[in-house]
């Protein structure tokens, strides 16, 4: 006989259970627990917007307060996903508006968001507080204006690296004079100038404002005036620094920064001139996060800045930092957890920067807490990888982008197999791995065998044969996302390990050797996967054996999607096979 557990009691208990894993377990205990859990789940995360239908999610969790959704696959960031592929937010917004009126927070990544969506959000959710759009597109500043104007309790409005149709800076003036709730505002990706007086007044009447990220159109004078009104900021993204230095301007800027005693995160700094850097010195000792990826500052100017940042945990910087600058980081930034080094020059020919593998080695040696790395570099060595693995077994994320395709160890001319083997074996907590450089199938055998906790794996320009894919799909126990470009993988491994694909969120392969015929076979064999062939030239017109340009495969409980453009082929579109299987919406 079971315990008497009234749903009211269970509700109280569940209010202390937040993680999705735990709530998923709770939902499976029995029918009444399923019901109580679904009616009390507040935060919903959907990693692939096509894995489930919006209607099903809205119906299951009517008391949703927070929704996080991801759309396009990650390689969309590198322009590998053609425009119009999909990832539309509208069906989700529509479904939530109908069934989940308590929704307060929406976070979208790599989705197509229209002004209509934004207007619908503004109109439908009375208590709407948080809108974060990352790498989204499809909307204009009019949509932003609608949110600003209507959402009385808006706390967070962040547009991170979105492509926005910028119709001017008026949107900012749509925040009503009565709005005082703002905690975070990020409009760094917009081009147009906003009226500085509107922004000043908004900042002045927002006592809870903690995070402000300006766009490059905001001048230094504007920045000074805003900092004076918001000395309580903990996160700041400056406007552009590319203005002529005037002595009074410099001292005003210095003073404004020195009054921001709680500043922990600094970004923006577009085209900052080295002469301005000393204005930042006063905030350096308190900084935990510094994003210099737009700062074209070179060595040795960077050292003076970095050596003052003893509390720094996160550093994003361009390769202009050079090995020498990374030595300074290793010496002074002992709290560093995350390092990202981006390429400053898009072409290899232009690149003449003294940033080598030694830079990463020295940081790995000096920064004991380092756990996340993204490093773009022209070439690398096995020895460096071995050292990094030995020194930093605590790495959780290791993404190495050797810019030259198929580049071997430049000292020994061998593939980088040994090096990545050391990383996979040594870093037992590795969750995310990106490999590059010349790699043979052997490397993937090691990775398949040892990278037990890796959830996301990215591979470019690597491998000898199909064996590579075979090793990965038969190993890598925790693999959830696999993305591959320009590798000689083909049909055999894919078809042999079809079942593995149901244990993963998605697989992306572009410029590989997967044939159209194999895609058809896979589609028929695995009806619970959506197999999408993304090809500018319709594959049906080519021989079955010809390789397709891109293939995107993901598990889904929603069945085939109905919003595919012309250049996306799925088996459901195939007139010979698909007609009777087409789901009627």
């Amino acid at each position, binding site marked *: 006989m079971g*315990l008497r557990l009234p749903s*009211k009691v269970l509700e109280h208990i569940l209010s202390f259970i937040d993680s999705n894993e735990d709530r998923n377990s709770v939902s499976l205990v029995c029918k009444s627990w399923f019901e109580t859990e679904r009616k009390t789940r507040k935060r919903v995360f959907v*990693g692939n917007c096509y894995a489930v239908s919006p209607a099903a999610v809205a119906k299951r969790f009517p008391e949703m307060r927070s929704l996080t959704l991801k759309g396009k696959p990650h390689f969309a960031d590198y322009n590998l996903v053609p425009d119009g592929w999909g990832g539309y937010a509208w069906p989700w917004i529509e479904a939530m508006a109908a069934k989940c009126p308590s929704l307060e927070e929406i976070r979208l990544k790599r989705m197509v968001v229209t002004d209509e969506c934004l207007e619908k959000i503004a109109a439908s959710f009375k208590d709407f507080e948080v809108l974060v759009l990352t790498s989204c597109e499809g909307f204009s500043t009019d949509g932003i204006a609608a949110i600003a104007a209507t959402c009385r309790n808006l706390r967070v409005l962040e547009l991170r690296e979105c492509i926005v149709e910028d119709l001017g800076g008026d949107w900012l003036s749509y925040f009503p004079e009565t709005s005082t709730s703002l905690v975070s505002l990020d409009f760094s990706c917009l081009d147009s100038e906003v009226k500085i007086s509107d922004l000043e007044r908004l900042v002045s009447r927002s006592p809870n404002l903690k995070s402000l990220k300006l766009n490059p159109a905001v001048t230094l004078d504007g920045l000074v005036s805003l900092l004076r009104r918001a000395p309580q900021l903990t996160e700041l993204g400056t406007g552009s620094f590319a203005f002529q230095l005037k002595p009074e301007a410099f001292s005003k800027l210095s003073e404004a920064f020195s009054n921001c005693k709680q500043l922990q995160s600094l970004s923006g700094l577009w085209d900052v001139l080295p002469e301005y850097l000393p204005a930042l010195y006063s905030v350096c000792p308190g900084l935990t996060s510094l994003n210099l990826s737009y700062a074209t500052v070179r060595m040795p100017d960077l050292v003076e800045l970095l050596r003052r940042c003893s509390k720094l945990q996160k550093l994003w910087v361009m390769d202009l930092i050079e090995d020498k600058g990374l030595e300074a980081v290793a010496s002074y930034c002992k709290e560093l957890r995350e390092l990202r080094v981006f390429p400053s020059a898009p072409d290899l020919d232009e690149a003449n920067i003294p940033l080598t593998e030694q830079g990463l080695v020295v940081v790995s040696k000096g920064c004991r807490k380092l756990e996340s790395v993204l490093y773009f570099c022209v070439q690398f060595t096995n020895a460096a990888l071995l050292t990094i693995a030995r020194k930093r077994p605590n790495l959780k994320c290791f993404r190495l982008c050797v810019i030259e395709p198929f580049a071997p160890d430049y000292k020994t001319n061998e593939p980088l197999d040994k090096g990545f083997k050391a990383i996979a074996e040594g870093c037992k907590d590795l969750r995310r791995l990106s490999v590059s450089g010349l790699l043979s199938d052997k490397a993937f055998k090691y990775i398949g065998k040892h990278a037990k906790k890796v959830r996301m794996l990215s591979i470019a320009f690597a491998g000898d044969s199909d064996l590579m894919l075979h090793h990965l799909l038969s190993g890598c126990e925790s693999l959830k996302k696999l993305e591959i470009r320009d590798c000689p993988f083909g049909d055999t491994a894919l078809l042999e390990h079809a079942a593995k694909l149901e244990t993963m*969120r998605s697989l992306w392969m572009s410029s590989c050797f997967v044939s159209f015929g194999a895609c058809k076979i896979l589609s028929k064999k695995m009806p619970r996967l959506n197999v999408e062939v993304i090809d500018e030239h319709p594959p049906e017109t080519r021989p079955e054996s010809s390789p397709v340009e891109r293939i995107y495969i993901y598990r889904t409980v929603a069945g085939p999607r109905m919003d595919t453009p012309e250049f996306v082929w799925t088996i459901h579109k195939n007139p010979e096979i698909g007609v009777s299987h087409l789901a009627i919406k």
Partner: protein
Amino acid sequence: MSSSKKSSDGKSSEIEEAVASLTMPFNKILLTSSDGESFEIDEAVARKFQIIAHMIEDDCAGKAIPIDNVTGDILSKIIEYAKKHVVEPDEDEDEEAKKKLDSWDAKFVEKLDLETIFKIILAANYLNFEGLLGFASQTVADYIKDKTPEEVREIFNIENDFTPEEEEAIRKENAWTFNG
């Protein structure tokens, strides 16, 4: 705290209540459980229960208050907890006291079986005793965290009433959709 069993005669218990109201020492409140147990407690302790605090404010509390929804054994435990928590130590100011109290709380709940904790949650909800409601709920939540559905069923002695198909469908939806 004194506890006395009432007679089963309803009429005489009314009289007893009235007598109690008149003869109760100042700042003491008498709570009577649904099964007739009486508990005399300080007003400060009684005020931990919001419904009683409101009654006191509104002056509609006699000095004797019937708690119809809660049995004596549960009420006794709740009062025990309330007495210990009349003054909540400030974590910053008196770390020592907070630690001691946390330790007492842990021992308090250790002795209780799950069924009793559920009854306490229900009662604390009825009495609007937020501190205990939160503490008891968190305690049970901790039993559930990081467990599989099978393990949870075992702890709570719950039967799985899903069909295999239903269970599989939910498992799939959970894993393929909401689990990243």
